[in-house]
């Protein structure tokens, strides 16, 4: 297949809007190819989008579906010759997730949090999501075995557990959510800061985060630790964010990437002492990111309208539900986590929501290096992923931002710096934020770029970048990005003008990390005891079997001796 004459933005390979042909053969980008030709003359061409943080599969997504039959009324699309029926908006059914990502020009999405115990469910759903490539990040932040290893300062054993946990869950990376808080919540409490010890475990969130990051690097995992900070969603939590970031400062990355990726930074950029004097602290956070190069973030933009918050931060969800008088669910995941789901609606005239909206944009616009900040809505926490084009059009147009600011609560203009931000992103920034940077941050070498040998995931948008001004024609930007003209996944045309043309099965990435045998044996002794005494299921039934991953991509990693870094 040859894609002729497109205006290609491939920032990972230093291509910034050049007219060129792309050749595809056997699912890869190649030097030269024959066969079908796609006419993309003057049209915007990018690599397939990569979503590094999205809640698309697993127990909590399904809890969301169960709690919201009303959501399933939206987004109904009947079956077609190639598609199965779609339902839902904030929590769509599995098929709809695949089709809608493909329409958007996205070809890869990672489920952001799955406890090991629930991983079989996660993979059952991932298997049913058509078209896109995917993976899942495994939760380790409130896990008994992790906390015990941290308390014993036995990082070798911790590495063995992380390696085992990734294999057991067929997970891709280490996710930490409100470290220690999930366990404390089992006793009706929460950790209040990173130095607040976890009840009954005598470890602090700071120790958990640092140890997991050290182990992450000693195992040379492709992705860094992926952290949802303590105190997320609370006024004044930006200090917790800065304190937490400082923990990772002196840890050496094992690869050319960040040491910590901060999930949905917007929810951790809050100033003030209560909801009354709630304000943005984006300049402080961004200043930290501009000065330090070991950390990256995704913005977790909120958009006005309905959303469904779902996270392994159960105390946060309990708080949300009581603040908003919304329906809620909590789930205790045995020795590993607790989680919750609360549907809500973000309102333009609500001062807190308006400020939250502005903070996400501030983070994206103030950060100097677009490689450090990637576009997400923390689907479906901030908004559905189908609204990414709305975020892009806001980032590219000051006019649109001003229009929106005049329609929302005035405090968004007073308590954030958004009104004064002149920056308008160009197509290069957008290509980085939506493709190149997420792929690099996740450590996916063949994704997010169009160099020879890369996966043939290509998106052609019905937009002539050389003949339009995105800062004025923001409606056109939004409309064109919402429905890609052509989406090519692994060399197969999957979507044309919004119509799904083929539904190939996607692949699932997971990481198999090796550790020294003696560490593993020590760890397994602990684990056997835990399964005998506490778990509701047997160790032999716990691992996700290979049969649940029909199209695996196994990335090998392995342990190096852990060097203790002085605090």
């Amino acid at each position, binding site marked *: 297949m040859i894609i002729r004459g497109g205006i290609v933005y491939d920032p990972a390979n230093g291509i910034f809007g050049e007219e060129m042909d792309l050749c595809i053969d056997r699912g890869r980008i190649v030097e030269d190819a024959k066969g079908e030709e796609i006419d993309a003359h003057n049209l915007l061409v990018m690599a397939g989008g990569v979503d590094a943080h999205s809640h698309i599969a697993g127990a909590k997504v399904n809890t969301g579906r169960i*709690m919201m*039959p*009303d959501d399933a009324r939206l987004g109904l699309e009947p079956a077609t010759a190639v598609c199965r029926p779609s339902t839902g908006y904030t929590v769509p059914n599995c098929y709809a997730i695949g089709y809608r990502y493909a329409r958007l020009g996205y070809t890869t999405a990672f489920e952001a949090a799955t406890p090991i115990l629930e991983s079989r469910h996660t993979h059952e759903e991932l298997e049913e999501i058509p078209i896109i490539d995917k993976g899942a990040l495994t939760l380790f932040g409130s896990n008994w075995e992790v906390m015990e290893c941290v308390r014993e300062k036995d990082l070798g054993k911790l590495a063995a557990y992380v390696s085992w946990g990734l294999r057991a869950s067929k997970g891709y990376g280490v996710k930490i959510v409100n470290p220690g808080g999930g366990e404390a919540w089992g006793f009706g409490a929460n950790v209040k800061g990173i130095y607040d010890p976890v009840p009954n475990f005598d470890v602090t969130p700071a120790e958990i985060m640092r140890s997991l990051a050290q182990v992450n690097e000693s195992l040379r995992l492709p992705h860094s630790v992926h952290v949802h900070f303590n105190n997320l969603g609370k006024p004044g939590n930006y200090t917790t964010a800065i304190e937490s970031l400082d923990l990772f400062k002196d840890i050496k990355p094992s690869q050319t990437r960040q040491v910590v990726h901060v999930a949905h930074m917007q929810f951790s950029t809050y100033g003030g002492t209560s909801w009354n004097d709630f304000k943005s602290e984006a300049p402080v956070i961004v200043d930290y990111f501009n000065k330090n190069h070991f950390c990256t973030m995704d913005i977790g933009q909120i958009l006005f309208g309905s959303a469904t918050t779902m996270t392994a931060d159960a105390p946060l969800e309990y708080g949300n539900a009581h603040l908003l008088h919304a329906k809620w669910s909590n789930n205790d995941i045995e020795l590993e986590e607790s989680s919750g789901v609360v549907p809500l609606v973000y309102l333009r005239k609500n001062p807190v929501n308006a400020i939250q909206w502005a903070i996400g944009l501030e983070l994206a616009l103030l950060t100097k290096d677009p490689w450090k900040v990637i576009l997400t809505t923390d689907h479906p926490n901030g908004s559905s992923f189908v609204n990414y084009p709305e975020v892009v059009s806001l980032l590219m147009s000051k006019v649109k931002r001003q229009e929106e600011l005049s329609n929302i609560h005035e405090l968004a203009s007073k308590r954030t710096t958004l009104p004064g931000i002149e920056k308008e992103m160009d197509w290069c920034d957008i290509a980085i934020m939506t493709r190149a940077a997420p792929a690099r941050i996740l450590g996916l070498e063949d994704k997010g770029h169009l160099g020879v040998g890369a996966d043939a995931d290509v998106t052609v948008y019905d937009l002539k970048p050389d003949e339009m001004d995105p800062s004025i024609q923001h409606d056109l930007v939004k409309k064109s990005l919402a429905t890609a003209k052509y989406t090519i996944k692994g060399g197969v045309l999957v979507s044309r003008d919004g119509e799904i043309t083929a539904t190939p099965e996607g692949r699932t990435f997971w990481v198999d990390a090796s550790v020294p045998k003696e560490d593993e044996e020590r760890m397994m002794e602990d684990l056997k005891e835990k399964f005998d005494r506490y778990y509701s299921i047997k160790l032999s039934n716990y691992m996700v079997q290979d049969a649940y991953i029909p199209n695996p991509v196994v990335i090998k990693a392995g342990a190096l001796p852990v060097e203790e870094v002085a605090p």
Partner: protein
Amino acid sequence: MRTITLQPLRAFEVSVEAEAISPSRFARLTLGRIRTQEVFMGNRKMKLADLFKVEGDEPLAIPEETTVVMDGDFSKVKRIGEGMIAGTLEVRGNVGMRAGNGMKGGLMTIRGNADDWLGREMTGGKIVVEENAGSHVGSGYRGEKCGMRGGEIEIRGSAGDYLGEHMCAGTIRVKGDTGDFPGAVNQGGTIFIGGDTYLPGAEMTKGSITVRGKTTMLPSYQKAEVVTLEGVQYQKYVGDLVENGKGELYAATSSP
């Protein structure tokens, strides 16, 4: 006035989804077009004329001056009059589930029984049922916060459980008894029950419920004064205190 009549061509074993049947949809369609309107029987797409005998006046009219008369048993036919905005719909028989779904205006008269979910999320207009109705009259779809938002439902017989669940506005009058939990999560609707009921107004925050017959009250209601309405003495309650509610509940102190 344009009148269109429908008669079922057979007794249906499988349910028919017929949201096409509505005076406001028929008004500007010729009889030929009406006969080709899409309906589903089970999962099979069919034309209206495959299942019903459609006759009536040919000249087009505005919805307000259109009457649809349905003669026969329609108890397996769902979603009759869905979203109708004006006109008159008269059913000389029973109707299936979700009749008057999302109705916005006009008058629907059902001479027989109505099934569950009658007038679900309706915003205007009037529905009259001469016999009994099923459960969830005037309530919201599963999971929705707001059910009936306006209009009027009158049931001359009795009604099932969850009458007016999640109601936000509008009026429901039932001459006979109702099942359990009428007016659950009522947020502003008015309900009048002529007969007996059980545990009305759970989680009610606004609106009113009047029960003329016998009722069992929830413990989360606070007694207020005794009032006389239309010559009948009622004990007034305020609640539901579980939700810090300001709803008003009137329970007759003597049997009718």
